[in-house]
Structures are given as C-alpha cells and as structure tokens.
C-alpha cells in the first residue's frame, strides 16, 4: 500500500479534483485481485476441497444420481492400502517417473551442450527442430508415434527388421508391457526434451566464458569443466527442471490413454490412469478420489522443492 500511496500523492497534488481517496479505492490491489480470486476459489479451491471430502465418501453411480455421497470415513484409504494393485501401480509410476525424468534430463542437457559446440547453421536447424517438437500437441504426438509403431505398416518394425535387430514383422509393441512402456517413454521423453534442452542452453549462454576458459587453462578436461564449473552455476535451473519434470511425468495420462485406444489393460495403469479408471469406468468416484489424493500428496513434496527454488531465485518478488 505504501508504494501506491506515494505514487498517488505526486499525481494528486497536480490534479486536486482527481480525489486521492477515489483512486486509491478503485485501484486497490484487493479490488483488482478479487475477480481472479473468486474464480480460482470456484474452479480450484472448491474442487480441491471436494476431492478431499469425496475420498472419505462412498460415491458410486447411485450417489452420482442422487447428488449426495455417503460418509464412510477412512474406508477408501483402507481399501487402497490393502489393494495389491494399488502398490503395483504406485511402484510402476515411481519407476516410470524415474526413468523418464533421468532420460529427459540427460538427453536434454546433452543436446544443450551440443548446441553450444555446433556451427551456426546446425544450431539454427536443431533449435528449429526442438521448437517444432515442443509445439506439437501431446494428442497429436501420441497419434504420430502410434503410427510409427503400427504392427503392420509402422516404420519402426520395418527399420528394426532391416537393421537385423530381429524379426519385427507384424510385431505388436503393446503385447509386452515393457516394450509398450518403452514406446510411451519415447513419446514422453521426445516431447519433454525441447523444454529442457532450450532452457539449459539459455542457462549455459549466461555462464561467463572467462570461468570456463580459466578452468581450461588450468588444464581441466571437458567433463571436469562441466562438473566443477558449469553444473554448480546451473544448479538453480536444474533443480527447477528436475522438479518440474518429476511433477509432469508422475501424472502422465494422455500418452497412455490415447496410445492404448482409451482402454489400457491393467498392466499399463499409472496413478493417474488408475484413479481415472476407478472413477469414470468403474464409477467408484470415492475410491478414485482417494487415489488422486495420494497422488496429489506425493507431488506436493516436489512442488514444495520447486516453489522454494523459485522463491530463492528471486522469482517471487
């Protein structure tokens, strides 16, 4: 408030009729914030409250029609804890996230380092390609990859057969969940690399060249320069990128849902898919909510790391 007041005092001295009181009340920050706050309360605050409440309720088709759930306390959570499938899904999701985040970060950083070393034309080409991939809608990307691994006419099978990796004629990648998740990982990582690569490249270009040169003159090898000079300087960026990637990969849904034609088998359930199926396929909205709440709570930890880094980096001023 103090800042706003002092701003006004200058103006109001010149124009006494433009009453200071009126301006201050009209432009008061709370007034400006109010409409957005109300909408956020309705579209985010209330749903968050509701999902917490739903997780303590029996909410099936009957309740959906009556518009009223039945309070059952912790029953949904007990059901989950004793459900071996839940633990499988949780473990699978953690593994999936770990693999995808690692691949995204390593490949993204490698491409960023490559961008620094290539000549200008190649850099332009590569940046353009990254931006194109970045811009491709997930739904579209999944369909393209689905086409690439099509059992009959997909390019992947033809190529692997030609390269004598094995006989991939009519090979269906999704029969075996491991190779199926391989394809899904490819889609996710392919789509996530551009953001990481371009962000790290932007960070690299802000690392003072003198520091790197000094290290090189001291005889440090490329890897050591990266580890001892570049990495510590870029640590804030990496913390943000890793936590964002974890948050994004932990909730992967579209890639699986569309890739497997909107009816993935249980082998392909990740947390988000499991919660969705429980709710919208089996109509156990209470159970689905409980799973979703667990998911939100797990992600909350990583959100905390992310937000703290943003505050530290001075983004929250």
């Amino acid at each position: 408030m103090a800042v706003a007041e002092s701003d006004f005092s200058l103006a109001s001295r010149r124009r006494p009729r433009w009453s200071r009181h009126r301006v201050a009340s009209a432009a008061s920050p709370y007034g400006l914030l109010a409409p957005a706050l109300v909408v956020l309360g309705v579209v985010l605050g209330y749903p968050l409250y509701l999902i917490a409440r739903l997780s303590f309720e029996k909410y099936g088709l009957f309740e959906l029609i009556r518009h009223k759930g039945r309070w059952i306390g912790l029953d949904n959570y007990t059901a989950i804890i004793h459900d071996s499938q839940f633990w499988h899904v949780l473990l699978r999701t953690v593994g999936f996230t770990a693999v995808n985040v690692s691949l995204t970060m390593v490949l993204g950083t490698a491409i960023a380092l490559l961008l620094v070393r290539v000549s200008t034309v190649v850099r332009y080409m590569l940046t353009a390609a990254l931006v194109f991939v970045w811009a491709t809608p997930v739904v579209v990307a999944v369909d393209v990859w689905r086409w690439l691994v099509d059992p009959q006419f997909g390019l992947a099978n033809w190529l692997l057969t030609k390269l004598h990796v094995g006989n991939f004629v009519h090979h269906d990648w999704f029969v075996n969940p491991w190779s199926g998740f391989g394809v899904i990982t490819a889609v996710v990582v392919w789509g996530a690399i551009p953001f990481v690569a371009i962000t790290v490249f932007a960070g690299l270009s802000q690392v003072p060249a003198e520091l790197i040169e000094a290290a090189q003159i001291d005889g440090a090898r490329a890897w050591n320069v990266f580890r001892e000079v570049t990495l510590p300087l870029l640590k804030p960026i990496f913390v943000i990128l890793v936590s964002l990637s974890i948050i994004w990969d932990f909730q992967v849904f579209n890639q699986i849902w569309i890739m497997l034609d909107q009816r993935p088998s249980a082998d392909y359930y990740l947390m988000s898919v499991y919660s969705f199926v429980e709710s919208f396929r089996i109509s156990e909205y209470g159970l689905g909510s409980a799973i979703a709440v667990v998911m939100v709570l797990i992600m909350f930890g990583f959100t905390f790391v992310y937000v703290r880094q943003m505050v530290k980096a001075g983004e929250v001023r």
Partner: protein
Amino acid sequence: MSSATPIAPTPVAAVVRQGPSARRRLGLLGWNAAGIAVFVVMVFPVYWMVSTAFKTGPNIFSYSPKWLPVPATLANFGDAIHRQYFWQNVRNSLIVVGVVVVLSLTLAFLAALALAKFKFYGRRAFIVLIIAVQMVPLNALIIPLYITLSRAHQVNKLSGVIITYMTFVLPFTIWTLRGFILGVPRELEEAAMVDGTTRFGAFVRVLLPLVAPGLVATSIFAFIQAWNEYIMAYVLLSSPEKQTLTVWLASFTTNRGTAWGPLMAGATLTALPVVGFFLLVQRRIAFGLTAGAVRG
C-alpha cells in the same frame, strides 16, 4: 557468447575464428554430425506425420516405406475435413478457446497489476499459491469438477468445459502477465506522472503499450494450452457434435483399425495453428520462464 539473448545463436565468427587448427576443425565436424543426427531424430516424427498426410493410400499401406510423399495428394485432408462433425468441432474448439482466453486474460491482467504494482498484505502468499496450484494434476481435479458440473447440469455443454479450463489457464496467465508487467520500469510511469499525467493516464499511455506484446504472447500461450487440452473435454463432452478437435482425433480409430492417412491429415490440421502461434512467441515465453533462475 556474452550478451546474446539465450536462444539466439551466437554469430558465426565466434565459432569459426577459433578453428585454424585441423584438430579443432575435425572436432567441429564431429559435433556438427552429431547435431544433424539429433536434428533428424527429433524432427522425423513430425516429418512422418506431414508426409503421411500427403501420401496416397497404397503408399501409406506399403510394406517398404515410401520416404517421400510422391505422388502427393490432398485426399487425406479432404477425407478429414469432410468427416462428420469436423467443422462443428472446429467451431467448438474456437468457442471454448476464445472465451477462455478473453476471460482469463481479463481476470489475470487485473490480478497481475495488483501483484506487480502494489505491495500489500498476502501478496507473496498469493504468488506462491499461484505457482503451486499449477502443479496440481488435472487428472485429480477432473473427478470433483465432473461431479460438481453434473450437479449443476453443465455436463456435455461447452460452458462446463470453459469453466474447467480456467483451472489451468488462469493461474498460468496471472503468473506470466505479472512477469511482463514487472518488466516495465516503474520510472517510465513515474516520469509520465511528473509530467502531469494522472496515474490512469500513465497506465494507458505508458504501461499498456509496453505490456501489449506480453499480453499478446500470454494470450497465445493460453490459446495453445486450451486448444491442446484433451482429458477434460473427453470426459465432459459425450456427444460427438459437442466435442473439440483433440477429442475428434480419436474418431479415426474404430474397431476395424485406424485410418492413418486421414488421421495424420487431421493431426496436421490440429497442430497447425498451435505450431504457428508457438513459433511466434516461444522465445519470449521461454525467456520469461527461467529468467533469473541462473542469476545466483
């Protein structure tokens, strides 16, 4: 390498000058080869989509792939846009996206002004909240949103989808717009006010023109987010004439298989506006996303 904007490549001289020695030049050659390899891998799926879209049926369904769409045909695009509900779904997408962008930009601009231009109790908490809620998975929110909307009889209506899209577009737009407003030096406005302009006058004549590019960039990004959204529309819109384009894309796969040619044409058409707009604003946003993150 010094003062260039992050994404803008450095001038040629910087790279070429350092390479009189044969070893250096050989190294550069190696890096370039690797760069081109990565380029090919990254860009290939996009190329394959577009080239399939232009191929004739026999060339798509061929056991040895045809690398080029020769002879080229527009038949797949014709098939895609003459599909039932295509134009209706385009219209739906445009309505949803249009309303979401206008609504969220208006609300976000007011809120961003408050966050960037005033100091008040609860400001930091609000900013932290705005960042944090963007991390809440949409998949978790869809359950309560669906139940609430079904109580309010807003299921299978575009209005319901518009409301749910605010959950992820609004926080994001507030956050980015705030960054753009912060980017305008306070001194400029103060100078205008010293010259006798009112605070409102300074706002209209100084702040608004300077923030305008940021407003455009943010609305384009809001457009992209809303245009790409799938899961909410998929759950909320059950009748085919009410659906949006991303849901429409699923209609190419039936029990009898997938119509790959038309699907790739449809996918290209769906991606086209997004990619076009994205290219316009990517640099601006990517910079805003991490600006300051490396300062330490």
